Protein backbone atom coordinates (compact mmCIF):
# COMPACT_ATOMS: atom_id res chain seq x y z
CA UNK A 1 0.00 0.00 0.00
CA UNK A 2 1.34 3.41 -0.97
CA UNK A 3 1.66 5.85 1.88
CA UNK A 4 1.94 9.59 1.46
CA UNK A 5 4.89 11.49 2.88
CA UNK A 6 3.71 14.95 1.82
CA UNK A 7 0.27 16.24 0.98
CA UNK A 8 0.03 19.61 -0.71
CA UNK A 9 -3.37 21.25 -0.73
CA UNK A 10 -4.09 24.47 -2.59
CA UNK A 11 -0.54 25.74 -2.27
CA UNK A 12 -0.14 29.27 -3.60
CA UNK A 13 2.95 31.44 -3.74
CA UNK A 14 2.38 35.00 -4.88
CA UNK A 15 5.18 37.53 -5.07
CA UNK A 16 4.19 41.18 -4.91
CA UNK A 17 5.29 43.36 -7.82
CA UNK A 18 6.32 46.78 -6.63
CA UNK A 19 6.52 49.86 -8.76
CA UNK A 20 6.42 53.59 -8.69
CA UNK A 21 7.90 56.11 -6.28
CA UNK A 22 6.42 54.62 -3.14
CA UNK A 23 7.01 50.96 -4.02
CA UNK A 24 3.33 50.36 -4.11
CA UNK A 25 2.25 46.83 -4.83
CA UNK A 26 0.83 46.97 -8.32
CA UNK A 27 0.21 43.29 -8.86
CA UNK A 28 1.27 39.80 -7.97
CA UNK A 29 3.39 37.22 -9.72
CA UNK A 30 1.29 34.12 -9.42
CA UNK A 31 4.33 31.84 -9.28
CA UNK A 32 2.44 28.91 -7.83
CA UNK A 33 -1.29 29.22 -8.11
CA UNK A 34 -3.10 26.45 -6.32
CA UNK A 35 -1.31 23.12 -6.40
CA UNK A 36 -2.66 19.88 -4.99
CA UNK A 37 -0.13 17.10 -4.95
CA UNK A 38 0.55 13.92 -2.99
CA UNK A 39 4.05 12.56 -2.76
CA UNK A 40 4.29 8.91 -1.78
CA UNK A 41 6.99 7.39 0.32
CA UNK A 42 9.75 5.84 -1.70
CA UNK A 43 8.76 7.20 -5.08
CA UNK A 44 10.50 9.56 -7.46
CA UNK A 45 8.09 12.26 -8.47
CA UNK A 46 9.14 14.40 -11.41
CA UNK A 47 8.05 18.01 -11.63
CA UNK A 48 8.52 19.22 -15.18
CA UNK A 49 7.80 22.44 -16.98
CA UNK A 50 9.39 25.40 -18.72
CA UNK A 51 11.13 28.26 -16.98
CA UNK A 52 8.76 30.48 -15.06
CA UNK A 53 6.14 27.79 -14.55
CA UNK A 54 6.70 27.80 -10.81
CA UNK A 55 8.29 24.40 -10.36
CA UNK A 56 11.32 25.66 -8.43
CA UNK A 57 9.18 27.97 -6.31
CA UNK A 58 6.96 25.05 -5.41
CA UNK A 59 9.99 23.00 -4.37
CA UNK A 60 11.24 25.81 -2.18
CA UNK A 61 7.80 26.42 -0.71
CA UNK A 62 7.77 22.85 0.59
CA UNK A 63 10.96 23.57 2.54
CA UNK A 64 9.67 27.02 3.44
CA UNK A 65 12.63 28.65 1.75
CA UNK A 66 9.85 30.65 0.19
CA UNK A 67 6.83 31.23 2.38
CA UNK A 68 3.63 29.99 0.75
CA UNK A 69 0.94 32.65 0.51
CA UNK A 70 -1.84 30.17 0.99
CA UNK A 71 -2.51 26.48 1.25
CA UNK A 72 -1.31 23.55 3.30
CA UNK A 73 1.79 21.39 3.22
CA UNK A 74 1.22 18.33 5.38
CA UNK A 75 4.02 16.04 6.40
CA UNK A 76 3.01 12.48 7.30
CA UNK A 77 5.54 10.63 9.40
CA UNK A 78 6.13 6.91 9.26
CA UNK A 79 3.75 6.50 12.19
CA UNK A 80 1.03 8.33 10.28
CA UNK A 81 1.23 11.52 12.31
CA UNK A 82 0.14 14.47 10.22
CA UNK A 83 1.76 17.87 10.73
CA UNK A 84 0.87 21.01 8.85
CA UNK A 85 4.17 22.70 8.08
CA UNK A 86 3.25 26.14 6.80
CA UNK A 87 1.66 27.27 10.06
CA UNK A 88 4.58 26.18 12.26
CA UNK A 89 6.74 28.68 14.09
CA UNK A 90 10.29 28.94 12.80
CA UNK A 91 11.84 26.89 15.59
CA UNK A 92 9.11 24.25 15.58
CA UNK A 93 10.03 23.64 11.98
CA UNK A 94 13.47 22.29 12.92
CA UNK A 95 12.61 18.59 13.39
CA UNK A 96 11.03 18.60 9.95
CA UNK A 97 13.98 20.33 8.31
CA UNK A 98 15.89 17.16 9.12
CA UNK A 99 13.41 15.12 7.13
CA UNK A 100 13.26 17.38 4.08
CA UNK A 101 16.33 18.47 2.17
CA UNK A 102 17.24 20.06 -1.11
CA UNK A 103 19.93 19.70 -3.80
CA UNK A 104 20.48 22.79 -5.91
CA UNK A 105 21.11 23.43 -9.55
CA UNK A 106 24.23 25.50 -9.86
CA UNK A 107 27.36 23.68 -8.75
CA UNK A 108 29.23 26.98 -8.65
CA UNK A 109 27.13 28.83 -6.14
CA UNK A 110 26.01 25.86 -4.08
CA UNK A 111 29.17 25.70 -1.98
CA UNK A 112 30.67 28.43 0.15
CA UNK A 113 33.98 29.39 -1.48
CA UNK A 114 35.63 30.49 1.75
CA UNK A 115 35.15 27.28 3.73
CA UNK A 116 36.46 23.77 3.29
CA UNK A 117 33.87 21.13 2.57
CA UNK A 118 33.94 20.08 6.22
CA UNK A 119 33.64 23.70 7.31
CA UNK A 120 30.55 24.21 5.19
CA UNK A 121 28.87 20.99 6.21
CA UNK A 122 29.55 20.82 9.91
CA UNK A 123 27.26 23.57 11.16
CA UNK A 124 23.99 21.78 10.37
CA UNK A 125 25.32 18.66 12.10
CA UNK A 126 26.32 20.74 15.10
CA UNK A 127 22.90 22.27 15.23
CA UNK A 128 21.18 18.91 15.19
CA UNK A 129 23.06 17.64 18.18
CA UNK A 130 26.23 15.99 16.93
CA UNK A 131 28.59 17.60 19.36
CA UNK A 132 31.94 15.92 18.87
CA UNK A 133 34.11 16.90 15.97
CA UNK A 134 35.28 13.33 15.34
CA UNK A 135 31.73 12.18 14.93
CA UNK A 136 30.99 14.97 12.47
CA UNK A 137 34.09 14.15 10.47
CA UNK A 138 33.08 10.51 10.39
CA UNK A 139 29.57 11.23 9.15
CA UNK A 140 30.79 13.52 6.39
CA UNK A 141 33.62 11.19 5.45
CA UNK A 142 31.29 8.21 5.18
CA UNK A 143 28.91 10.15 3.01
CA UNK A 144 31.73 11.35 0.74
CA UNK A 145 32.67 7.73 0.20
CA UNK A 146 29.06 6.92 -0.46
CA UNK A 147 29.08 9.34 -3.39
CA UNK A 148 32.32 7.87 -4.76
CA UNK A 149 34.62 10.57 -3.49
CA UNK A 150 37.57 10.36 -1.21
CA UNK A 151 37.24 10.95 2.52
CA UNK A 152 40.20 13.38 2.50
CA UNK A 153 38.33 15.71 0.15
CA UNK A 154 36.49 17.18 3.12
CA UNK A 155 39.49 19.39 3.89
CA UNK A 156 39.63 20.88 0.43
CA UNK A 157 38.06 24.06 -0.85
CA UNK A 158 35.25 24.11 -3.41
CA UNK A 159 37.36 25.62 -6.17
CA UNK A 160 39.47 22.47 -6.26
CA UNK A 161 36.52 20.44 -7.51
CA UNK A 162 34.89 20.05 -10.90
CA UNK A 163 31.21 20.71 -11.48
CA UNK A 164 30.24 17.07 -11.12
CA UNK A 165 32.17 16.68 -7.89
CA UNK A 166 30.59 19.78 -6.42
CA UNK A 167 27.19 18.44 -7.24
CA UNK A 168 28.05 15.28 -5.34
CA UNK A 169 29.11 17.36 -2.37
CA UNK A 170 25.75 19.09 -2.64
CA UNK A 171 24.17 15.67 -2.40
CA UNK A 172 26.31 14.87 0.65
CA UNK A 173 25.07 18.03 2.30
CA UNK A 174 21.48 17.08 1.65
CA UNK A 175 22.09 13.56 2.99
CA UNK A 176 24.00 14.42 6.16
CA UNK A 177 20.97 14.59 8.42
CA UNK A 178 19.47 11.40 6.99
CA UNK A 179 16.42 12.99 5.37
CA UNK A 180 13.39 11.16 4.07
CA UNK A 181 12.60 13.42 1.15
CA UNK A 182 15.05 15.27 -1.06
CA UNK A 183 13.96 17.99 -3.44
CA UNK A 184 16.32 17.88 -6.41
CA UNK A 185 16.02 21.30 -7.99
CA UNK A 186 17.39 20.93 -11.52
CA UNK A 187 20.13 18.88 -9.89
CA UNK A 188 21.72 17.75 -13.15
CA UNK A 189 20.76 20.52 -15.58
CA UNK A 190 23.98 22.50 -15.30
CA UNK A 191 26.23 19.50 -15.85
CA UNK A 192 27.79 18.19 -19.02
CA UNK A 193 26.01 15.15 -20.38
CA UNK A 194 28.76 12.72 -19.50
CA UNK A 195 28.74 13.91 -15.89
CA UNK A 196 24.97 14.16 -15.80
CA UNK A 197 24.69 10.43 -16.30
CA UNK A 198 27.08 9.76 -13.42
CA UNK A 199 25.03 11.89 -11.04
CA UNK A 200 21.74 10.37 -12.20
CA UNK A 201 23.06 6.89 -11.55
CA UNK A 202 24.36 7.94 -8.17
CA UNK A 203 20.99 9.41 -7.19
CA UNK A 204 19.24 6.17 -8.10
CA UNK A 205 21.72 4.11 -6.14
CA UNK A 206 21.42 6.31 -3.05
CA UNK A 207 17.67 6.15 -3.22
CA UNK A 208 17.78 2.37 -2.99
CA UNK A 209 20.36 2.31 -0.21
CA UNK A 210 18.82 4.96 1.97
CA UNK A 211 15.14 4.54 1.23
CA UNK A 212 14.70 8.06 -0.05
CA UNK A 213 11.87 9.86 -1.72
CA UNK A 214 12.74 12.37 -4.43
CA UNK A 215 10.88 15.32 -5.77
CA UNK A 216 12.81 15.77 -8.97
CA UNK A 217 12.39 19.21 -10.51
CA UNK A 218 13.63 19.58 -14.08
CA UNK A 219 12.83 21.05 -17.45
CA UNK A 220 14.19 18.00 -19.24
CA UNK A 221 11.46 15.49 -19.87
CA UNK A 222 13.82 12.79 -21.09
CA UNK A 223 15.57 12.80 -17.70
CA UNK A 224 12.26 12.64 -15.84
CA UNK A 225 11.05 9.80 -17.97
CA UNK A 226 14.16 7.81 -17.19
CA UNK A 227 14.25 8.59 -13.49
CA UNK A 228 10.73 9.10 -12.22
CA UNK A 229 7.81 6.91 -11.26
CA UNK A 230 5.30 9.65 -11.75
CA UNK A 231 5.55 13.00 -13.49
CA UNK A 232 3.66 16.22 -12.86
CA UNK A 233 3.74 18.76 -15.67
CA UNK A 234 3.34 22.39 -14.63
CA UNK A 235 2.28 25.36 -16.69
CA UNK A 236 1.91 28.90 -15.31
CA UNK A 237 1.80 27.90 -11.68
CA UNK A 238 -0.56 24.97 -12.02
CA UNK A 239 -0.29 21.27 -12.58
CA UNK A 240 -1.79 20.43 -15.94
CA UNK A 241 -1.05 16.72 -16.00
CA UNK A 242 0.02 14.14 -13.43
CA UNK A 243 0.49 10.48 -14.21
CA UNK A 244 2.83 7.52 -14.41
CA UNK A 245 5.93 8.43 -16.32
CA UNK A 246 5.31 5.89 -19.08
CA UNK A 247 1.75 7.04 -19.50
CA UNK A 248 2.86 10.59 -20.01
CA UNK A 249 4.72 9.53 -23.10
CA UNK A 250 2.38 6.83 -24.39
CA UNK A 251 -1.01 8.18 -23.38
CA UNK A 252 -0.58 11.93 -23.26
CA UNK A 253 -3.80 13.68 -22.33
CA UNK A 254 -2.97 17.36 -22.14
CA UNK A 255 -2.13 19.26 -25.34
CA UNK A 256 0.66 21.14 -23.54
CA UNK A 257 2.42 17.94 -22.48
CA UNK A 258 2.00 16.69 -26.00
CA UNK A 259 3.67 19.77 -27.47
CA UNK A 260 6.39 19.66 -24.86
CA UNK A 261 7.21 16.05 -25.62
CA UNK A 262 7.27 16.62 -29.33
CA UNK A 263 9.53 19.65 -28.95
CA UNK A 264 12.29 17.77 -27.20
CA UNK A 265 15.03 16.84 -29.63
CA UNK A 266 15.71 13.14 -29.48
CA UNK A 267 19.14 11.71 -30.15
CA UNK A 268 17.76 8.79 -32.09
CA UNK A 269 17.22 9.00 -35.82
CA UNK A 270 14.54 6.31 -35.68
CA UNK A 271 12.42 8.15 -33.19
CA UNK A 272 12.08 11.46 -35.04
CA UNK A 273 8.54 12.79 -34.90
CA UNK A 274 6.93 15.88 -36.33
CA UNK A 275 7.30 18.66 -33.80
CA UNK A 276 4.21 20.48 -32.70
CA UNK A 277 5.34 24.09 -32.77
CA UNK A 278 3.46 26.21 -30.27
CA UNK A 279 2.68 29.78 -31.18
CA UNK A 280 3.96 32.65 -29.10
CA UNK A 281 5.58 32.77 -25.68
CA UNK A 282 4.65 31.70 -22.19
CA UNK A 283 2.33 34.43 -20.89
CA UNK A 284 3.40 36.50 -17.91
CA UNK A 285 2.49 34.97 -14.57
CA UNK A 286 1.54 38.47 -13.39
CA UNK A 287 -1.37 38.53 -15.74
CA UNK A 288 -2.28 34.99 -16.73
CA UNK A 289 -4.88 34.58 -19.46
CA UNK A 290 -8.50 34.07 -18.49
CA UNK A 291 -9.95 30.61 -18.77
CA UNK A 292 -7.46 27.83 -19.36
CA UNK A 293 -4.02 29.44 -18.97
CA UNK A 294 -2.78 27.48 -21.97
CA UNK A 295 -5.54 28.43 -24.41
CA UNK A 296 -3.75 31.26 -26.30
CA UNK A 297 -1.05 28.83 -27.42
CA UNK A 298 -3.13 25.69 -27.60
CA UNK A 299 -3.63 24.34 -31.12
CA UNK A 300 -6.88 22.67 -30.05
CA UNK A 301 -8.46 25.52 -28.07
CA UNK A 302 -12.24 25.96 -28.33
CA UNK A 303 -14.60 28.58 -26.94
CA UNK A 304 -14.99 26.95 -23.57
CA UNK A 305 -11.21 27.14 -23.02
CA UNK A 306 -11.31 30.92 -23.21
CA UNK A 307 -13.82 31.32 -20.43
CA UNK A 308 -13.68 28.41 -18.04
CA UNK A 309 -10.70 27.35 -15.99
CA UNK A 310 -10.32 23.57 -16.23
CA UNK A 311 -9.76 21.64 -13.00
CA UNK A 312 -7.48 18.68 -12.45
CA UNK A 313 -9.66 15.63 -13.08
CA UNK A 314 -8.91 11.98 -12.55
CA UNK A 315 -8.90 9.59 -15.48
CA UNK A 316 -7.54 6.14 -16.02
CA UNK A 317 -5.08 5.12 -18.67
CA UNK A 318 -3.45 1.76 -18.88
CA UNK A 319 -5.00 0.90 -15.52
CA UNK A 320 -3.22 3.73 -13.75
CA UNK A 321 -4.49 6.92 -12.22
CA UNK A 322 -3.99 9.80 -14.59
CA UNK A 323 -4.83 13.40 -13.73
CA UNK A 324 -5.17 16.17 -16.28
CA UNK A 325 -6.78 19.57 -16.45
CA UNK A 326 -8.24 20.10 -19.90
CA UNK A 327 -11.78 20.53 -21.18
CA UNK A 328 -11.16 18.51 -24.27
CA UNK A 329 -10.37 15.06 -22.89
CA UNK A 330 -13.02 12.57 -23.93
CA UNK A 331 -12.16 9.84 -21.44
CA UNK A 332 -14.60 9.06 -18.65
CA UNK A 333 -13.79 10.85 -15.43
CA UNK A 334 -13.22 8.70 -12.36
CA UNK A 335 -14.25 9.90 -8.95
Amino acid at each position, binding site marked *: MKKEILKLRGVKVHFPVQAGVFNRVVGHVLAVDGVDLDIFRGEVLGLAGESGCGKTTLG*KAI*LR*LVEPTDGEVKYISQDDDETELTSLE*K*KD*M*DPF*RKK*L*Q*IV*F*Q*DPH*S*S*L*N*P*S*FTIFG*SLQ*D*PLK*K*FGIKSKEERRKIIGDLLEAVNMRREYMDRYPHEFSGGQRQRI*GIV*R*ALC*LEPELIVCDEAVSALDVSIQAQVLKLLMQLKKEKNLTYLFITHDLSVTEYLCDRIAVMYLGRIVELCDSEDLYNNTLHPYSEALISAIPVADLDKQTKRIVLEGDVPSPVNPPKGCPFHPRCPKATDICKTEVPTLKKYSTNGNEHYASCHLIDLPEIS
Partner: protein
Amino acid sequence: MAKSSLDKKFDQIRKREEEKTFSTKKRSRIVNKFLNNRLAVLGLIIFTIIILASIFAPLLSPYDPMRVDLRSMRQPPSFDHWFGTDSTGRDVFTRVLFGGRVSIFIGLGSAILSAVVGIAVGCYAGYKGGWIDVIALRISEIFMSFPQIILVLLLVSITGQSLFNLMAIFILTGWGGMYRLARARMLSLREEEYVQALRSFGLSTFTICYKHMLPNALSPIMVNITLSTAMFILTEAGLSFLGLGVPLNIPTWGNILNVAQDILILQNYWWMWGPVGIVISVFVLCVNFIGDGLRDSTDPSQQG
Protein backbone atom coordinates in the same frame (compact mmCIF):
# COMPACT_ATOMS: atom_id res chain seq x y z
CA MET B 1 54.81 41.70 -40.84
CA ALA B 2 56.67 42.58 -37.70
CA LYS B 3 55.63 40.65 -34.68
CA SER B 4 53.83 42.72 -32.09
CA SER B 5 54.92 42.63 -28.48
CA LEU B 6 51.85 40.61 -27.67
CA ASP B 7 52.85 38.00 -30.21
CA LYS B 8 56.30 37.75 -28.72
CA LYS B 9 54.84 37.24 -25.29
CA PHE B 10 52.60 34.51 -26.67
CA ASP B 11 55.58 32.78 -28.24
CA GLN B 12 57.36 32.77 -24.91
CA ILE B 13 54.42 31.34 -23.04
CA ARG B 14 53.89 28.68 -25.69
CA LYS B 15 57.51 27.68 -25.59
CA ARG B 16 57.41 27.45 -21.84
CA GLU B 17 54.22 25.42 -21.97
CA GLU B 18 55.60 22.99 -24.50
CA GLU B 19 58.78 22.50 -22.53
CA LYS B 20 56.72 22.22 -19.36
CA THR B 21 58.88 24.75 -17.60
CA PHE B 22 56.14 27.08 -16.44
CA SER B 23 56.30 28.01 -12.81
CA THR B 24 54.24 25.74 -10.64
CA LYS B 25 54.66 27.60 -7.41
CA LYS B 26 51.85 26.76 -5.08
CA ARG B 27 51.00 30.29 -4.14
CA SER B 28 47.48 31.53 -3.98
CA ARG B 29 46.32 33.15 -7.18
CA ILE B 30 45.36 36.31 -5.36
CA VAL B 31 48.78 36.76 -3.74
CA ASN B 32 50.41 36.05 -7.08
CA LYS B 33 48.36 38.62 -8.87
CA PHE B 34 48.99 41.20 -6.21
CA LEU B 35 52.74 40.61 -6.38
CA ASN B 36 52.62 40.91 -10.15
CA ASN B 37 51.17 44.38 -9.81
CA ARG B 38 54.36 46.41 -9.49
CA LEU B 39 52.63 49.57 -8.32
CA ALA B 40 50.84 47.77 -5.54
CA VAL B 41 54.08 46.21 -4.31
CA LEU B 42 55.86 49.55 -4.47
CA GLY B 43 52.94 51.07 -2.57
CA LEU B 44 53.13 48.39 0.07
CA ILE B 45 56.88 48.91 0.54
CA ILE B 46 56.69 52.67 0.94
CA PHE B 47 53.59 52.33 3.08
CA THR B 48 55.47 50.02 5.43
CA ILE B 49 58.49 52.31 5.54
CA ILE B 50 56.42 55.35 6.44
CA ILE B 51 54.49 53.47 9.10
CA LEU B 52 57.62 52.02 10.64
CA ALA B 53 59.30 55.42 10.56
CA SER B 54 56.36 56.95 12.40
CA ILE B 55 56.21 54.20 14.98
CA PHE B 56 59.92 54.39 15.71
CA ALA B 57 60.00 58.19 15.44
CA PRO B 58 61.71 58.73 18.81
CA LEU B 59 64.55 56.45 17.73
CA LEU B 60 65.01 58.12 14.38
CA SER B 61 65.18 61.69 15.50
CA PRO B 62 67.06 63.30 18.36
CA TYR B 63 64.69 66.25 18.54
CA ASP B 64 61.51 66.79 20.48
CA PRO B 65 58.68 67.68 18.09
CA MET B 66 57.22 70.16 20.56
CA ARG B 67 60.28 71.93 21.90
CA VAL B 68 60.65 75.47 20.75
CA ASP B 69 64.21 76.46 19.91
CA LEU B 70 64.35 80.13 19.11
CA ARG B 71 68.03 80.05 18.21
CA SER B 72 67.40 77.88 15.18
CA MET B 73 64.36 79.52 13.60
CA ARG B 74 63.41 79.03 9.97
CA GLN B 75 66.61 77.28 9.02
CA PRO B 76 66.70 75.72 5.55
CA PRO B 77 67.34 71.97 5.31
CA SER B 78 70.79 71.00 6.49
CA PHE B 79 72.56 67.93 7.78
CA ASP B 80 71.31 68.66 11.29
CA HIS B 81 67.76 69.45 10.27
CA TRP B 82 66.89 67.34 7.26
CA PHE B 83 63.72 69.23 6.49
CA GLY B 84 64.85 72.49 8.09
CA THR B 85 63.11 74.12 11.03
CA ASP B 86 59.89 76.09 11.38
CA SER B 87 59.09 79.54 12.69
CA THR B 88 59.62 78.49 16.29
CA GLY B 89 62.74 76.49 15.55
CA ARG B 90 61.19 73.04 15.80
CA ASP B 91 62.70 70.36 13.55
CA VAL B 92 60.32 69.78 10.65
CA PHE B 93 61.52 66.24 9.96
CA THR B 94 60.77 65.21 13.53
CA ARG B 95 57.41 66.86 13.37
CA VAL B 96 56.60 65.03 10.15
CA LEU B 97 57.48 61.71 11.78
CA PHE B 98 55.42 62.39 14.89
CA GLY B 99 52.67 63.95 12.82
CA GLY B 100 52.52 60.72 10.82
CA ARG B 101 51.71 58.81 13.99
CA VAL B 102 48.64 60.88 14.67
CA SER B 103 47.51 61.25 11.07
CA ILE B 104 47.85 57.56 10.24
CA PHE B 105 46.24 56.61 13.53
CA ILE B 106 43.27 58.84 12.75
CA GLY B 107 42.97 57.64 9.16
CA LEU B 108 43.40 53.93 9.76
CA GLY B 109 41.57 53.91 13.07
CA SER B 110 38.54 55.75 11.77
CA ALA B 111 38.45 53.60 8.64
CA ILE B 112 38.56 50.35 10.58
CA LEU B 113 36.09 51.44 13.24
CA SER B 114 33.63 52.82 10.74
CA ALA B 115 34.01 49.57 8.79
CA VAL B 116 33.18 47.58 11.91
CA VAL B 117 30.05 49.61 12.52
CA GLY B 118 29.05 49.60 8.87
CA ILE B 119 29.59 45.87 8.45
CA ALA B 120 27.83 44.94 11.65
CA VAL B 121 24.73 46.85 10.64
CA GLY B 122 25.01 46.24 6.91
CA CYS B 123 25.37 42.47 7.08
CA TYR B 124 22.39 42.00 9.30
CA ALA B 125 20.23 44.52 7.50
CA GLY B 126 21.20 43.21 4.08
CA TYR B 127 20.51 39.61 4.93
CA LYS B 128 17.43 40.06 7.03
CA GLY B 129 15.80 43.08 5.44
CA GLY B 130 12.71 44.41 7.21
CA TRP B 131 12.41 47.48 9.35
CA ILE B 132 16.02 47.48 10.58
CA ASP B 133 17.13 47.74 6.99
CA VAL B 134 14.69 50.53 6.19
CA ILE B 135 15.74 52.60 9.21
CA ALA B 136 19.47 52.08 8.69
CA LEU B 137 19.10 52.93 5.03
CA ARG B 138 17.29 56.17 5.80
CA ILE B 139 19.86 57.20 8.39
CA SER B 140 22.72 56.52 6.02
CA GLU B 141 20.90 58.51 3.36
CA ILE B 142 20.70 61.48 5.70
CA PHE B 143 24.42 61.32 6.34
CA MET B 144 25.20 60.90 2.70
CA SER B 145 23.22 63.85 1.48
CA PHE B 146 25.66 66.16 3.23
CA PRO B 147 28.92 66.79 1.44
CA GLN B 148 31.26 64.99 3.79
CA ILE B 149 33.55 67.88 4.61
CA ILE B 150 30.59 70.14 5.32
CA LEU B 151 29.11 67.63 7.72
CA VAL B 152 32.45 67.20 9.43
CA LEU B 153 32.88 70.94 9.76
CA LEU B 154 29.35 71.27 11.05
CA LEU B 155 29.93 68.64 13.70
CA VAL B 156 33.31 70.08 14.60
CA SER B 157 31.67 73.42 15.16
CA ILE B 158 29.18 71.83 17.51
CA THR B 159 31.43 69.49 19.44
CA GLY B 160 34.62 71.52 19.41
CA GLN B 161 38.09 70.49 18.32
CA SER B 162 39.80 67.47 19.76
CA LEU B 163 41.44 64.29 18.51
CA PHE B 164 38.76 62.11 20.01
CA ASN B 165 35.93 64.23 18.65
CA LEU B 166 37.44 64.20 15.22
CA MET B 167 37.66 60.40 15.12
CA ALA B 168 34.13 60.07 16.42
CA ILE B 169 32.96 62.43 13.71
CA PHE B 170 34.82 60.50 11.04
CA ILE B 171 33.23 57.26 12.16
CA LEU B 172 29.82 58.88 12.29
CA THR B 173 30.15 60.23 8.77
CA GLY B 174 32.02 57.25 7.35
CA TRP B 175 30.00 54.22 8.36
CA GLY B 176 27.27 54.91 5.82
CA GLY B 177 29.38 54.03 2.79
CA MET B 178 30.59 50.83 4.36
CA TYR B 179 27.08 49.95 5.42
CA ARG B 180 25.84 50.30 1.88
CA LEU B 181 28.65 48.23 0.49
CA ALA B 182 28.16 45.43 2.99
CA ARG B 183 24.44 45.52 2.47
CA ALA B 184 24.74 45.34 -1.32
CA ARG B 185 27.13 42.38 -1.09
CA MET B 186 24.79 40.62 1.29
CA LEU B 187 21.83 41.20 -0.96
CA SER B 188 23.59 39.45 -3.80
CA LEU B 189 25.08 36.70 -1.63
CA ARG B 190 21.67 36.02 -0.16
CA GLU B 191 20.59 34.48 -3.45
CA GLU B 192 23.56 32.11 -3.60
CA GLU B 193 22.54 28.53 -3.26
CA TYR B 194 24.81 27.70 -0.35
CA VAL B 195 23.02 30.31 1.72
CA GLN B 196 19.69 28.80 0.77
CA ALA B 197 21.05 25.41 1.76
CA LEU B 198 21.99 26.71 5.20
CA ARG B 199 18.55 28.20 5.53
CA SER B 200 17.02 24.88 4.62
CA PHE B 201 18.73 23.48 7.72
CA GLY B 202 17.16 26.23 9.78
CA LEU B 203 20.45 27.62 11.06
CA SER B 204 20.25 30.85 12.99
CA THR B 205 20.42 34.15 11.17
CA PHE B 206 23.50 35.09 13.15
CA THR B 207 25.49 32.01 12.08
CA ILE B 208 24.49 32.26 8.44
CA CYS B 209 25.08 35.94 8.22
CA TYR B 210 28.30 36.56 10.12
CA LYS B 211 29.99 33.18 9.93
CA HIS B 212 29.12 31.94 6.46
CA MET B 213 28.34 34.99 4.38
CA LEU B 214 30.63 37.67 5.77
CA PRO B 215 33.94 36.03 4.73
CA ASN B 216 32.74 36.13 1.12
CA ALA B 217 32.03 39.82 1.34
CA LEU B 218 35.37 40.71 2.86
CA SER B 219 37.47 41.45 -0.19
CA PRO B 220 35.52 44.49 -1.43
CA ILE B 221 35.34 45.60 2.18
CA MET B 222 39.12 45.39 2.53
CA VAL B 223 39.52 47.48 -0.59
CA ASN B 224 37.07 50.00 0.75
CA ILE B 225 38.92 50.20 4.07
CA THR B 226 42.14 51.15 2.29
CA LEU B 227 40.33 53.71 0.19
CA SER B 228 38.58 55.28 3.14
CA THR B 229 41.85 55.35 5.07
CA ALA B 230 43.23 57.47 2.25
CA MET B 231 40.18 59.66 2.31
CA PHE B 232 40.22 60.20 6.07
CA ILE B 233 43.88 61.16 6.01
CA LEU B 234 43.13 63.70 3.30
CA THR B 235 40.13 65.07 5.16
CA GLU B 236 42.10 65.37 8.39
CA ALA B 237 44.86 67.18 6.52
CA GLY B 238 42.35 69.51 4.91
CA LEU B 239 40.64 70.29 8.19
CA SER B 240 43.85 70.85 10.07
CA PHE B 241 45.12 72.98 7.22
CA LEU B 242 42.09 75.17 7.78
CA GLY B 243 42.85 75.13 11.48
CA LEU B 244 39.64 73.31 12.26
CA GLY B 245 40.86 69.76 12.70
CA VAL B 246 43.06 68.43 15.41
CA PRO B 247 44.04 71.13 17.93
CA LEU B 248 47.10 72.92 16.65
CA ASN B 249 49.36 71.88 19.51
CA ILE B 250 49.30 68.24 18.43
CA PRO B 251 51.52 67.76 15.39
CA THR B 252 49.69 66.14 12.50
CA TRP B 253 50.47 66.35 8.84
CA GLY B 254 47.65 68.80 8.32
CA ASN B 255 48.71 70.97 11.23
CA ILE B 256 52.24 71.23 9.91
CA LEU B 257 50.86 72.35 6.57
CA ASN B 258 48.73 74.94 8.24
CA VAL B 259 51.58 77.46 8.17
CA ALA B 260 51.41 77.60 4.39
CA GLN B 261 48.28 79.71 4.61
CA ASP B 262 50.64 82.56 5.19
CA ILE B 263 51.75 83.74 1.78
CA LEU B 264 55.12 84.82 3.15
CA ILE B 265 55.94 81.31 4.31
CA LEU B 266 54.50 79.89 1.13
CA GLN B 267 56.84 82.03 -0.91
CA ASN B 268 60.02 82.02 1.14
CA TYR B 269 60.20 78.95 3.38
CA TRP B 270 59.28 76.04 1.11
CA TRP B 271 60.72 73.41 3.45
CA MET B 272 58.13 74.16 6.09
CA TRP B 273 55.24 72.90 3.96
CA GLY B 274 56.70 71.26 0.83
CA PRO B 275 58.11 68.02 2.29
CA VAL B 276 55.11 67.29 4.45
CA GLY B 277 52.79 67.88 1.51
CA ILE B 278 54.79 65.41 -0.49
CA VAL B 279 54.77 62.89 2.35
CA ILE B 280 50.99 63.10 2.59
CA SER B 281 50.62 62.74 -1.16
CA VAL B 282 53.01 59.82 -1.35
CA PHE B 283 51.45 58.05 1.59
CA VAL B 284 47.91 58.44 0.28
CA LEU B 285 49.09 57.44 -3.17
CA CYS B 286 50.60 54.27 -1.71
CA VAL B 287 47.41 53.44 0.14
CA ASN B 288 45.49 53.94 -3.08
CA PHE B 289 47.92 51.72 -5.00
CA ILE B 290 47.47 49.01 -2.43
CA GLY B 291 43.73 49.36 -2.59
CA ASP B 292 43.76 49.20 -6.37
CA GLY B 293 46.07 46.20 -6.36
CA LEU B 294 43.80 44.43 -3.91
CA ARG B 295 40.80 45.20 -6.04
CA ASP B 296 42.38 43.87 -9.18
CA SER B 297 43.73 40.75 -7.57
CA THR B 298 40.49 39.83 -5.85
CA ASP B 299 38.31 40.57 -8.84
CA PRO B 300 37.68 37.25 -10.56
CA SER B 301 36.41 38.90 -13.73
CA GLN B 302 39.80 40.34 -14.60
CA GLN B 303 42.40 38.12 -16.13
CA GLY B 304 45.76 38.90 -17.41
